[in-house]
């Protein structure tokens, strides 16, 4: 009896899981298929089989002067890479400062960061744009990654990780061995934090890569645009006149790097979600 009900529930579980997996994958499947078909084929209707226009579409996208995809990718890579490095390094540094040292403002500093942990950046967007304009950094990539130095969510992840994996004895042993405090951080603490840094670097990279709101306010120059702004530009253009093969191809290019990284590292990324438990 017990066995039979479990059997039924197992089947139900599989059915639901397969439907959900289908939902998640199917859109990407259409995307990939349509990126290989030309405009006329796409207009005729949907097909499960890929077309032969992949290279044509790619070529068309690369040579469209209005949508500088190459520089978009380059800008996105610069901004996301720099943000990932800054966020992980300085969040680790901050977490270490609050974890390994005792000082008067330690507790207030910690509480402060915890309080702004999930505060959205949108609430200060107005001031941010004005400040960036005042600093002469409007229409540059700097304001897109410099604020990553203060990343409360990454900090919280690093702090939790240190609590579970970094015994303070290690720091003291290094102190006695004659290591300076900065050296201890760079040579002893960072290597131990490597798994956490890797996970958070990926998350920060992805978040920044996908970020749309702030870059759209800061960047207006075509050559400085990141991928999400290019996609938005695509939408604002007169859509009906567009070569749909090209549209799908650009979307594919925008998400492909992330998908590839994810396919390689999904196990670690998923483990990372639960480690930090912090949602952007």
């Amino acid at each position: 009896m017990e066995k039979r009900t479990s059997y039924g529930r197992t089947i139900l579980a599989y059915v639901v899981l397969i439907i959900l997996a289908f939902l998640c994958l199917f859109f990407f499947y259409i995307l990939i298929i349509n990126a290989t078909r030309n405009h006329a084929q796409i207009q005729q209707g949907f097909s499960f089989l890929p077309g032969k226009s992949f290279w044509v579409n790619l070529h068309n996208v690369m040579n469209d002067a209005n949508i500088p995809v190459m520089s978009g990718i380059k800008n996105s890579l610069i901004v996301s890479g720099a943000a990932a490095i800054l966020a992980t390094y300085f969040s680790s540094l901050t977490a270490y400062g609050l974890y390994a040292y005792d000082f008067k403002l330690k507790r207030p500093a910690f509480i402060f960061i915890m309080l702004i942990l999930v505060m959205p950046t949108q609430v200060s967007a107005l001031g941010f744009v004005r400040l960036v304009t005042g600093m002469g950094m409007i229409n540059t990539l700097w304001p897109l990654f410099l604020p990553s130095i203060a990343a409360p969510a990454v900090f919280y992840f690093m702090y939790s990780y240190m609590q579970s994996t970094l015994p303070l004895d290690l720091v003291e042993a290094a102190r006695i061995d004659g290591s300076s405090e900065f050296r201890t951080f760079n040579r002893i603490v960072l290597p131990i934090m490597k798994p956490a840094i890797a996970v958070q670097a990926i998350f920060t990279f992805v978040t920044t890569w996908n970020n749309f709101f702030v870059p759209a306010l800061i960047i207006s120059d075509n050559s400085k645009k990141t991928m999400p702004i290019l996609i938005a530009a695509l939408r604002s253009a007169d859509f009906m006149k567009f070569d749909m093969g090209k549209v799908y191809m650009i979307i594919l290019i925008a998400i492909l790097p992330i998908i590839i990284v994810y396919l390689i590292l999904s196990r670690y990324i998923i483990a990372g979600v639960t480690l930090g438990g912090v949602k952007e």
Partner: protein
Amino acid sequence: MAGITFKNVVKTYDNGVTVIPDLNMEIKDKEFVVLVGPSGCGKSTTLRMIAGLEGISSGDLYIGDTRMNAVAPKDRDIAMVFQNYALYPHMTVYKNMAFALTLKKVPKDEIDRKVHEAAEILGLEEYLDRKPKALSGGQRQRVALGRAMVRNPSVFLLDEPLSNLDAKLRTEMRSQISKLHKQLETTFVYVTHDQTEAMTMGDRICVMKDGIIQQFDTPQKLYNEPCNLFVAGFIGSPQMNFADAVVEKTDQGYELVFGETRVPTQREELAPYVGRTVVLGIRPEHLRAGEEYIRGGNTLTAEVDLSEMMGSETYLYLNYAGSRFIAKLPGTVIAPAGSKVTLALDVDRIHVFDKETEKSILN
């Protein structure tokens, strides 16, 4: 060369808690000193002040002739072994041991020579390329010792280095550390909460409680002449038996009366206590069962609560005159629970303490 001197040292934490109220202590060069006491007694703090990991609120700390209060740990010519070894997990055994020397910019071949020297003494040569994760507890412990050794420090600090090892390994490492001390001829300061470790390893033992030194003496002295109730109870296993006794004056001298037992003594120190209650202490091994002892008198007859056979000896747990007694008898003694036994007190080995001040009256 490198004795350690504490002069009126006070340690108060930022939150206002004073853990060391006023510490005066002198550790001689090349001495093996054990700091022992229950957890929270300030022994670790004392060690960490020597290391420079903990600031000194007031007073002076000297290592050799140099005042060390404001000297960084690395400039104190010390090395430290931590309770959980504190090995750098991402470095090999070799790199762990070489790290301090690398930072000091010691030439490569000299580092190599020193690391191999230490590894040989500790039997670690075949593990030099491994990471700490791939080592057993005992091996990690030896790497921690090796890391300290390569630096040739004038003071060796050890913070409960054996408490994470199992009992058998602990005995082994105990003798290895003692051997190391003789070999290296440097000052060792060793912190433990385990009185057995203290007794077997220390040249001198410093018993601490609440940040105050209770007694700082050789193991023999601590065992034979504990200066107060705390030290008497802390040193020795099983613990010393204590019972309230009344001092009475007799023709020959004095008698300590508890239950039916009257313990005669001629010690004049008891004169001020006549008619008053004191605490009588007797170690479990100084309660004897043999006929030859009982014939001499000073006996107590009590009911056995529980007897524990240890093989080479037997522990009897007794109730007598409202106090619990433990007797440690050689060999196997058959004494089932509920049976009565008669034991003789070794009169020469009794301890007497003032009930208020808890200080020893006889020593």
